[in-house]
C-alpha cells in the first residue's frame, strides 16, 4: 500500500513552541501534500512538495522531503492556539491523480 504513517499520533505543546510532525510512505511518489483539519471540518490544503524538491516554506510552515528515506516533515514555528487541529500528509503516486492519506497527527497548542 502506498499509504504512509505519521508520527507522533498526538502532540501537545505550549503556545510559541515549534511543532514537528513526520510522515513516512512506502512507494515512490510524484508529490506529497499536507492538510489541516479542524474538529472534523473540511480539509485545508497547506503545502504541496514534489518529489524533486527538498524543502518548501509557506509563512510559519516548513516542509521537507527526503525521497531516499521516503519521509517528510512538517514544521510549524511559533505555534498558536489556532493551530490546534489534525494534520494529514497525503501522497500522490502520479501527477494529476488521487492521493492516499496517512493516519494523521493530532496537534494541541496550549495557550
Amino acid at each position, binding site marked *: 500500500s502506498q499509504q504512509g504513517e505519521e508520527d507522533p499520533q498526538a502532540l501537545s505543546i505550549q503556545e510559541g513552541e515549534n511543532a514537528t510532525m513526520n510522515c513516512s510512505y512506502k512507494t515512490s511518489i*510524484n508529490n506529497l501534500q499536507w492538510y489541516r483539519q479542524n474538529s472534523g*471540518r*473540511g480539509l485545508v490544503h497547506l503545502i*504541496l512538495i514534489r518529489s524533486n524538491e527538498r524543502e518548501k516554506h509557506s509563512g510559519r510552515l516548513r516542509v521537507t522531503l527526503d525521497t531516499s528515506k521516503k519521509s517528510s516533515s512538517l514544521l510549524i514555528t511559533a505555534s498558536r492556539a489556532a493551530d490546534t487541529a489534525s494534520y494529514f500528509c497525503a501522497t500522490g503516486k502520479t501527477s494529476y491523480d*488521487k492521493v492516499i*492519506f496517512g493516519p494523521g497527527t493530532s496537534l494541541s497548542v496550549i495557550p
Partner: protein
Amino acid sequence: SAVISQKPSRDICQRGTSLTIQCQVDSQVTMMFWYRQQPGQSLTLIATANQGSEATYESGFVIDKFPISRPNLTFSTLTVSNMSPEDSSIYLCSVVRDRLTDTQYFGPGTRLTVL
C-alpha cells in the same frame, strides 16, 4: 483554488435506506474523487469518478454499495446504499484542478449518521 460544494452538509438516516450526496465544482475537471472519513480516522479513498465511464473503486469498496454518477465535468454524486450504522462517516469529494499544480482540493464534506 477550486470552489467545491456538497449537498447535503449533514443528514441523519435510518438503517436500510440510501442517501445520495452531490458534489458540484465551479469549473470543469477531468477527475473527481470520493473519500470517506470514519469517526476519529483519516481519509480513505472510495473511488475515482470518471466522466463518461464507470467509476474506479478502491479495494474494499463496491459499486453496489457506493454507486457513483458523473454526468458531466463539474458534477458527481455518491450514493450510500442500504445503510448501516457502520456507514456513519464524513464523505468528501475532491478534485485536482489542473496538471500544473496537482493540488487536490476538497469539498466541505457530508456528515452522515445512520441510526
